[in-house]
């Protein structure tokens, strides 16, 4: 199994009464709450934490894109991946990813991903999220009902720009380019592995299977609630005939490792609460613009991960409930090992992504979490799925890889 550290880079300094005083952490969160001096320190702490994860044996480092929010301070994950490309030498750089429909022309993504792949010696995982409604419809003004069409067209353009041998013309509905010819081309051939992060859309599952990509479920409800979604995923992709290779799936889980179960509560309790109550405090109106989800997905009963109903489910949770319901897997190394093995086996996940910097968790505790996870948990999970072949791992990200590109 592959294990990656996922970082959201949240703003750690929201006021204590944030969720009662402000309606939303996303879209219209006032930037009077933002302190650039503090954020200067944050970015550098966060990069230190990601770099430390490589030293602790993590296989990959995940960054992602969000806008107008205090939940994740990475409008450009590519900038963070570029910084990591120079300060790491072995780990996969999993950019999860660039929201294709937000780039005009989307060739910008093809170019920047190719740059990252070349700089890092072929360590890039190319992630293409549709993007949340908050990011795409509200922060970037994309019309909800055209978002997916734009996304699919942009995907086709990027993949063609990476794989077609000739200079070509692209006559799309949203993008027209007479001469498509990107320099540089990616180092990995035919192209970097593609992972699609998602929140449970039926169409995305089928599309992912058809194109033989990895599907990553980024759940805000933890692995116990995520089981139903992942079961739906495995069933949906079996219809177009995809096999059940666990490496087709990625899953994100919050994890907190301490010396003991009791210490885990002391270390992570307040920060998990900060994450669920402040970082996910999204106003109902911004949770999903009308048209963001297709009729089919609405009819499938999929519910938004943020907004009023989600908030009501999460707002009264105690530490005990966060743990029991799987929102976070936390405790001693033994406890975490046992529950995480159960999680990846039940969900059939080959690419596990763990969120170890959670909400307001400060650097010293984050490094402790990374260190304990790397030393006490990670080695025990490596051996899961011994018979499966990971066809979606960047070719330059082998543990032995350390040289400069030839």
């Amino acid at each position, binding site marked *: 199994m592959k294990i990656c550290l996922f970082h959201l880079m949240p703003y750690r300094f929201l006021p204590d009464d944030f969720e009662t005083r402000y309606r939303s952490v996303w879209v219209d969160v006032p930037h009077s709450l933002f302190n650039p001096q503090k954020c200067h320190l944050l970015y550098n702490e966060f990069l230190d934490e990601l770099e430390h994860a490589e030293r602790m044996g993590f296989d990959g480092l995940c960054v992602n894109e969000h806008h107008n929010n205090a939940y994740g301070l990475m409008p450009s994950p590519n900038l963070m991946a570029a910084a990591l490309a120079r300060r790491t030498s072995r780990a996969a750089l999993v950019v999860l990813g660039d929201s294709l429909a937000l780039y005009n022309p989307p060739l910008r993504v093809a170019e920047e991903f190719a740059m990252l792949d070349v700089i890092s010696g072929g360590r890039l995982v190319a992630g293409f999220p549709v993007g949340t409604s908050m990011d795409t*419809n*509200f922060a970037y*003004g994309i*019309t*909800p*009902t*055209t978002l997916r069409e734009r996304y699919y067209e942009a995907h086709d353009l990027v993949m063609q720009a990476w794989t077609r041998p000739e200079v070509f013309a692209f006559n799309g509905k949203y993008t027209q380019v007479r001469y498509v010819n990107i320099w540089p081309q990616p180092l990995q051939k035919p192209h970097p592995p593609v992972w699609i992060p998602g929140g449970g859309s039926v169409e995305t599952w089928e599309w992912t299977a058809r194109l033989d990509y990895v599907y990553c479920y980024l759940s805000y409800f933890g692995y116990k609630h995520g089981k139903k979604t992942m079961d739906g995923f495995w069933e949906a992709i079996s219809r177009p005939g995809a096999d059940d290779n666990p490496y087709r799936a990625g899953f994100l889980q919050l994890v907190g490792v301490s010396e003991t179960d009791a210490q885990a509560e002391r270390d992570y309790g307040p920060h998990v609460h900060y994450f669920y109550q402040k970082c996910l405090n999204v106003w*109902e*109106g*911004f949770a999903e*613009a*009308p*048209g963001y*989800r297709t*009729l089919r997905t*609405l*009819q499938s009963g999929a519910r938004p991960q943020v907004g*009023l109903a989600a908030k009501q489910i999460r707002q009264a949770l105690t530490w005990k409930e966060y743990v029991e319901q799987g929102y976070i897997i936390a405790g001693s190394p033994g406890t975490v090992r046992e529950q995480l093995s159960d999680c990846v086996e039940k969900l059939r996940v080959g690419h596990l992504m763990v969120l170890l910097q959670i909400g307001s968790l400060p650097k010293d505790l984050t490094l402790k979490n990374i260190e304990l996870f790397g030393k006490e948990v990670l080695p025990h999970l490596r051996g899961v799925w011994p018979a499966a072949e990971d066809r979606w791992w960047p070719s330059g990200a082998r543990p032995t890889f350390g040289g400069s590109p030839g």
Partner: protein
Amino acid sequence: MAVGRPTHLRWVPRLMLAREEVVPIRGGTVRFRGLQAGVGEPLIFFHSFEGLAGWPEFLERLSGRYAVRAPLHPGVGGSEGVESLDDVVDLALAYDEWLTALGIDRCHLAGHFFGGMVAAEVAALCPSRVRRLALLSPMGLWLDGVPQADSVTLPPSELHPLLWKDPESPAAKAWATPPPSDEAKATAQIERIQRLAAMGKFVWPIPDKGLKKRLHRIVAPTLLVWGDSDRVNPVAYGEEFLRRLKRAELRILPGGHMLPYESSEATARALLDFLSAP
């Protein structure tokens, strides 16, 4: 959460005076479903995001003197083909083709908010088709200093006090009363999302889509009707339309944004006076 009754899904005439009509255009790519009632000169009414189920009272009143047709916008309540329409000009041209398919040459146009924008677009693109144009709190312009309410985004509970002058009025209460069963609630919720998504496609994220460059093409006498307590689309927009139209008058009536539904009689009267003027 309180959700409005499905407004256009079950467009069932309350008094069974209106009958259903389905008209395909563009080889069936777009299919307009709607209701019609009355005899006389043709009068088209274009609906907006919010309304009330059934054949509204003010249309019933208008149908006493006009052949009223109220089509549903593509993607709403059984009208199809919204995915094939790229922008509001495309939509207006589809309505031009719909009129042709019905054999209607010249007609009166009316519309509420989003529907007002559509009526204005049709009148600007096909000026010779339109006898008289009645715009009820129309959308389509943008004033930086007076932003419209984000009515496509607001949850029903927060939209309710903005829509109605008197949120306790029977019409306002009817709008806010959720259906009785959970199943009907879920269906109503999906219908509402689909309805807002379909119209939202043409005005997201700001409804300034070029109408201001086309308004000068309108030649028909135009009536602008506004509720004095319109908290969704402030009356400043009425004044802006008035400045940009050649032959327009602005009438302000007691009422909120949902004027045609909460002040049906006054709205119908204003329209009848205007449409029948020599």
